[in-house]
C-alpha cells in the first residue's frame, strides 16, 4: 500500500477500556475535527461503561450541537444516550456529561477562592480584570487547564476528555501554564507591584538602571490612569499569585502523570500534519504521554482496485464511442449513452487522486514518526449533527 512502512495501529478501544486512562487530551490545529472527535470518544467510552465528562473550550457550540443539547455551560450537563443493544452485554452502565468552558466564570471562581471577600470584590470590579477575564485571547488556555485540574480533583468522573482551544497553534495549550509561571516570575510584575507597596522605594533602588526608564516609558505610553488601574489590579492579584503558580504547576504535572493520554488530531492535509508533527515532537520533549494520531476525513474508495489513470482512460474511451454514435458531434456527457458510467468513472478518478494526495501527505508524517500509532477516520459524506452521527464516527475509528 505504501513505500513507507505502515505505522502501528492505534487501538482506541483499548485506550478507553483501560481504567487507568483518566484524562484524554485532544489536540491539533483548528478545523481538523477535534471537537467532534472528543465528543465521539466520550460517547463511545460512556457506552462501554466509563463515567465520562467531555470538556470543550470551543465557543462555536459545536459540541452542544452534535450532542443534541441547545447549549453547554460551565457545569457538566448529563447527555442522555441510549444504551446499545448488545447480545450478552453485561457491561456496567456508563454515563456521559458535557460542558463548555466559561472562561470568565472560571477566572472569577479562582479569584473568589484565593482572596478574602473584600479583595476579591476589589479585583472583580477592576476594569482591567473584567476585560482580561472575559475578552482576550490567551486567557482561555489557562482557564481550560484550570478547569481540567478542577474536574480531575473533583474525582466525580473516571474519564475526562478535553478538547483544546482553537488557538493559532496546538502548542499554545501546552505552553499556557508555563507562560503563566514565567510571567509571575517576571521583573515587570515586581516593577508594577513595587510602587503600590509600603517600602517600595527602598526596593526600587535595588533594581537596575533600566527600571526608571521603563517606569517613565510606561507612564508616558500608557498614561497615568491606565498604569494606576494596572497597578491596582496586579497588586490586588499579588496575594493570590502563589495560588496561581501552584495550580499551574499542578496542571502541568497532571498532564505528565500516568493516566493522561494525548491524542493528536489531524486531517490529511499538509498544514494540519505539520502542526501534528510539531506537537508530537513537543510532547516527546516534555515527557508527556502520546497515545497516537487520529487522522480524520481520510478519503477511501470501495473500488480502489481501479486506478485513477485507468478510470480516466475508460471515461475517454466511452466518450469517444458516444461521440461517434452521435455522428461525431461530441456533445455533453449527459446526453450520451454512457453518460452515467462516464460520470461515475470521472468521480472515481477524482477520489483516487485525492486519496493518493492524502496518502502522500500522511506518509511524510509516518516517515518522521514511525512509532506513533495511527487510527484513520474515513470522511463522512454527511455532517455530524446528532448522537447517531457521533456514534458512527466512533464506530469508524474504533473499528480502524
Amino acid at each position, binding site marked *: 500500500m505504501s513505500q513507507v512502512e505502515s505505522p502501528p495501529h492505534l487501538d482506541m478501544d483499548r485506550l478507553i477500556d483501560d481504567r487507568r486512562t483518566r484524562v484524554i487530551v485532544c489536540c491539533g490545529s*483548528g*478545523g*481538523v475535527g477535534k471537537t467532534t472527535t472528543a465528543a465521539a470518544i466520550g460517547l463511545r467510552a460512556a457506552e462501554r461503561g466509563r463515567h465520562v465528562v467531555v470538556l470543550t473550550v*470551543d465557543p*462555536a457550540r*459545536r459540541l452542544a*450541537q452534535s450532542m443534541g443539547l441547545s447549549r453547554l455551560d460551565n457545569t457538566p450537563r448529563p447527555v442522555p444516550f441510549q444504551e446499545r443493544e448488545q447480545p450478552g452485554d453485561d457491561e456496567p452502565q456508563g454515563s456521559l456529561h458535557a460542558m463548555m468552558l466559561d472562561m470568565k466564570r472560571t477566572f472569577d471562581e479562582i479569584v473568589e477562592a484565593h482572596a478574602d471577600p473584600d479583595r476579591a470584590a476589589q479585583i472583580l470590579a477592576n*476594569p*482591567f480584570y473584567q476585560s*482580561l477575564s472575559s*475578552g*482576550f*485571547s*490567551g*486567557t482561555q488556555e489557562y482557564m481550560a487547564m484550570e478547569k481540567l485540574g478542577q474536574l480531575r480533583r473533583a474525582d466525580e468522573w473516571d474519564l475526562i476528555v478535553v478538547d483544546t482551544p482553537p488557538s*493559532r*497553534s496546538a502548542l499554545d495549550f501546552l505552553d499556557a501554564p508555563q*507562560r*503563566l509561571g*514565567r*510571567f509571575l516570575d*517576571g*521583573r*515587570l*510584575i515586581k*516593577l508594577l507591584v513595587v510602587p503600590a507597596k509600603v517600602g517600595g522605594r527602598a526596593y526600587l533602588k535595588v533594581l537596575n538602571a533600566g527600571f526608571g526608564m521603563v517606569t*517613565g*516609558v*510606561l507612564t508616558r*505610553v500608557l*498614561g497615568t*490612569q*491606565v498604569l494606576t*488601574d494596572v497597578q491596582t489590579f*496586579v497588586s490586588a492579584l499579588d496575594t493570590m499569585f502563589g495560588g496561581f503558580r501552584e495550580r499551574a504547576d499542578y496542571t502541568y504535572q497532571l498532564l505528565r502523570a500516568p493516566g493522561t493520554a494525548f491524542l493528536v488530531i489531524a*486531517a490529511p492535509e499538509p498544514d494540519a500534519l505539520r502542526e501534528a508533527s510539531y506537537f508530537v515532537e513537543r510532547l516527546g520533549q516534555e515527557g508527556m504521554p502520546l497515545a497516537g494520531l487520529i487522522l480524520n476525513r481520510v478519503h477511501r*474508495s*470501495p*473500488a480502489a482496485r*481501479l486506478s485513477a489513470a485507468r478510470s480516466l482512460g*475508460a471515461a475517454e474511451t466511452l466518450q469517444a*464511442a458516444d461521440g461517434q454514435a452521435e455522428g461525431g458531434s461530441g456533445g455533453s*456527457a*449527459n446526453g450520451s449513452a*454512457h*453518460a*452515467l*458510467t*462516464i*460520470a*461515475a468513472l*470521472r*468521480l*472515481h478518478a477524482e*477520489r483516487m*487522486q*485525492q486519496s493518493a*494526495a492524502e496518502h502522500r501527505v500522511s506518509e511524510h508524517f509516518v516517515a518522521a514518526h514511525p512509532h506513533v500509532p495511527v487510527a484513520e477516520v474515513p470522511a463522512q459524506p*454527511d*455532517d455530524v449533527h446528532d448522537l447517531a452521527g457521533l456514534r458512527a464516527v466512533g464506530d469508524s475509528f474504533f473499528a480502524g
Partner: protein
Amino acid sequence: MVWAEVQYGLRDIGDYWCVNADSLHGVSTRDTDWDGVRLHVVTGKGGTGKTTVAGALALALASGGKRVLLMEVEGRQGIAQVFDRPPLPYEERKIAVAPAGPTQPGGDVYALVADPESALIEYLEMFYNLRHAGKALNRFGVMDFATTIAPGLRDVLLTGKAAEAVRRKRHGKLVYDAVVMDAPPTGRIGRFLNVSSEVSGLARVGPIRNHADTVRKVMHSPETAVHFVTFLEEMPVQEVLDGVAELRELDGGPIQVGGIMINMVRPTELSPSQLRAAETGSIDEHEIAIGLKTAGIDDSLRLAADLAAELTEHAVAAAGQEMQRQRLAEPGQPRYDLPLIADGMDLGGLYRLAAALRDQGAA
C-alpha cells in the same frame, strides 16, 4: 526603513478622512464589489484555507498595476508557505507579481509577517523616539505581560499595524492601494478587531486611548471589510453565519462584512436527475456495468456496484453542500466560488484562484 517617511501620528487622525480622494487615484474603469475597501480582513474557520485565499485575494487586487500588502498576524509563516518562500522576517518585502493583462500592467504583492514585539518597538520609536526603551520593555517582560495578562495589547498592536499600513503615505500618496490581512479564525475575529474598542474602554484618556481610537476608526470605516472563507460544510458555514452576526452587532459598532469565499468547490459530473437517483441509492448499476464492459474493464458487475456506492456518497454530499450554499445566502453578502485545485495547491493554483476572484468581481 521607510518609517522616517511614514506619516503616522496622532496629528493625522483629523486629516485621515480627507485622504480618501487620494486613494481613488489608481481605480481602473473596472467595477468590483469592493471598490473603496482598502483593508481586506480575511477570516474563516481554521483549516478552510484562509491564508491561501488571502494570498489569492492579494494577487487579484494587485493586478492592474496596484501595490498590495499581504499581512499575517499569527506568526505561523503561512504566507511563506503559500508563496513557496523561506520564512519571512518582520519587514515588508515583495513576494509576488500579479500578471499583466492585455491592456493592464501587472502589480506587486508585498508581504509582512507582523509580530507584536516588533510592532511595539516600532510604535514606541515612531511615536516617542523610544527605540531603546522598547528593548528595555522587552527585557522587563512587557511582551510576556502582553501575551499573558493583557493579550489585548497584542491584538491592538497587530490591528494597529494594519491600520498604519492602510493609512501610510509617502510624498503625499498612499503607499498601498490595499492591505489584505490574513486574520485569526472566525471564533476570535470579533474580539480581535474590536480590541481597540476594548482598550478604549480600559484606557479612558492618554496616548494608548488615542492610538486605540485611531485603529478603531479604521476598523469600523467603510474602507474595511471582513471576508469569510468557508467550505460547504455545516460547521464552517455555521461559523460564517455566527461571525457575520457578531460583526454586525459588535459593542463598538458594526464592522463591514465583506464577501463569502467558498473554497474548494468541486464541479459535479452528474445531471440533476442523476444526482437525485444517486442520492436515493437508485442508480442503475447495470447501466454502469455495460459502460465498464464497453470500455474493456473486467469485473464490471462488482465494480459497477462499488462505483454506484461512490456516486451515492457523492450525491449525499452534494445535497448537503447545496443546503449549505442556501444557508450562506442568508446574510445577503456576495459569494464567490473558488475551485478545488485537485492536483495539490501550489503557486500556479494560487494564480488560478486569483483569476477566479477577479472573474467574479471580488477584486
